């Protein structure tokens, strides 16, 4: 028997949405809410807002990218966002069936007035870790962020 449950992270919420930009807000608001519920326990008041905003923004970026890079041949494509956590770290994975992409990203050269390409760069800056895997035609972008616990002297 193979063990089935993730050893170090408990799944919290799994959200599956149609790959359509109209639903990006659902994804990011959910991320914000999940982050808020999680962070309420883990961090102090001042950091909760920042933690939630980081998740709201990152999921907004990741979902938008997922929709943008979807192949037009698959109109009923779905994107799944999976949140999981351990005591101090929240993780979110965005799973889609888009073509493979290279998740390493540089900051776009701002002086050339780029209209896009900030998405993954923002996620890298807002999150602690970002990893990308591809298996059996499925992309998974996983991000984690630790809720900082402030020790007041």
């Amino acid at each position, binding site marked *: 028997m193979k063990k089935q449950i*993730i050893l170090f992270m408990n799944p919290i919420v799994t959200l599956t949405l149609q790959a359509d930009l109209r639903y990006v807000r659902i994804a990011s608001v959910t991320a914000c809410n999940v982050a808020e519920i999680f962070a309420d326990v883990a961090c102090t008041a001042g950091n909760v807002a920042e933690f939630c905003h980081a998740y709201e923004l990152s999921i907004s970026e990741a979902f938008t990218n997922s929709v943008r890079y979807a192949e037009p041949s698959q109109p009923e494509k779905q994107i799944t966002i999976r949140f999981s956590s351990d005591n101090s770290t929240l993780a979110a994975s965005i799973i889609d069936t888009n073509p493979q992409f*290279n998740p390493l990203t540089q900051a776009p050269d701002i002086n050339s007035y780029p209209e896009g390409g900030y998405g993954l760069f923002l996620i890298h800056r807002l999150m602690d870790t970002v990893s990308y895997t591809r*298996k059996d035609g499925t992309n998974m972008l996983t991000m984690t962020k630790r809720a900082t616990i402030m020790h007041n002297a």
Partner: protein
Amino acid sequence: MKTLIVIKKQEYEWLLDLFPGVHPLLLPICNKPFIEFFVDFSIFTGSNAIRIVSDGPLRDVERYCENGSRWGVEISYGSMLPADELHSVIDKNRRFCQEERVVIISGFLFIHYDKKSDYASLFASLPSGELFSCGRGSISLTGTPVVETNTTTGASPFSLTALDSVGKYYRLSMDILKNGLTRYVLPGYSSESDCYIGRNVVIPKSAEIKKPVIIGNNVQILSNSVIDKNSVIGSNVIIDRESVISGSIVMDNTYIGEHLEVKDKIAAGNLLIDPESGTTIVMEDPHLLTSMAQSKVAGTLLRRVVHALAATLLIILQFLPWFLLRPILGIQGNWKRDKGQYHTGLPGKAFTMTKTTIGNNGPLCAIAKALSLDRFPLLFRVLSGKLLLIGSQPVLINPATRVIPNSMSGYRPGVFSYAEAEDWPEIGIDTEIVEHYYAVHGNPLKDIAMTQKALFNRTH
């Protein structure tokens, strides 16, 4: 009263090369970040709100100062463009600047002040306009005087120094240390004058410390070292034994090796800067001056050594069974070898590896599998440093897809993989999270335990 601090990137760019990774506004001047001198001065002028405006990044400054509640003032941040003149900066911050008088500090400059002077009533009574300038910066004031006074200010109670060279930075620090310690608000424990010592500072009996001196937090001074007078030691610093520091600034996170004499210099990480000529020497020898932040390298080295030792042990244990079973399995055709190009931990680099698979026929195969003999040839790659004993599953290079393992995910190929240790299905998305988790949170001892686990789990 409010204070508007306007700093252009161009004014401090020279510091970015010298002290990389430190925002110039957070550069310590006598154990206190530069920006705090501005904050203190603003408070002395009676300001209850401060806005810091720059055309460069302020993220680190914001992270340090936050909203200013630590000082009981309201700190906000604004941006400007490099070409903006002072009046357009004031326009851009009009809402901040209206209603109250505003002290405008423009330029990367140090304000010499004295905490005993009454700046609040002075600034309330001064007429608006430019008050002081020093060529590269100025202090001006807007609004009408609140109190009309006719006190003729004789000697001005403060002066300005533009920080535009490392020599000026050094002389300023030394000047504060020698003459100005009582004028500014400095943190640290001070049982006697001219001597400020931070928290968690270890000083052995044999070490000698002469004042004036400032020492930060978490500092270790080893035996027979001398901190001669006029020295500023930052935080997280180690002065190794029998070294002499005099008239020098040792920046945060710096290790000063043993038997060294640092005189009239600035030591920062692995740089030794001569403030008069501005020349810097990069210390090649890691034993002389190395940043403690590089301990990661030592960590990897330790990991390698532990892995190599454990691999040697496994080689000794597996040798006899391998020696007996390998020829039989080979004849039976149950010892299949597959040569392939695999990713190394470094982007763009590859290595060749032969992967062995054992067939599924008969008890001999079962024994060989149980003993993980298929991995035996790979153990030697651990000794040569190509593989870790336990790490990520080696990823085959597929020229068709050209996927690059993300350097962020901590991919390091190993003979065994963490996923195996946790009995994770070898394919599947979660495998890489497991590997990533241990790559980040692992340590050599844990690795040994995980290898045992992998050896055990593979038999089932």
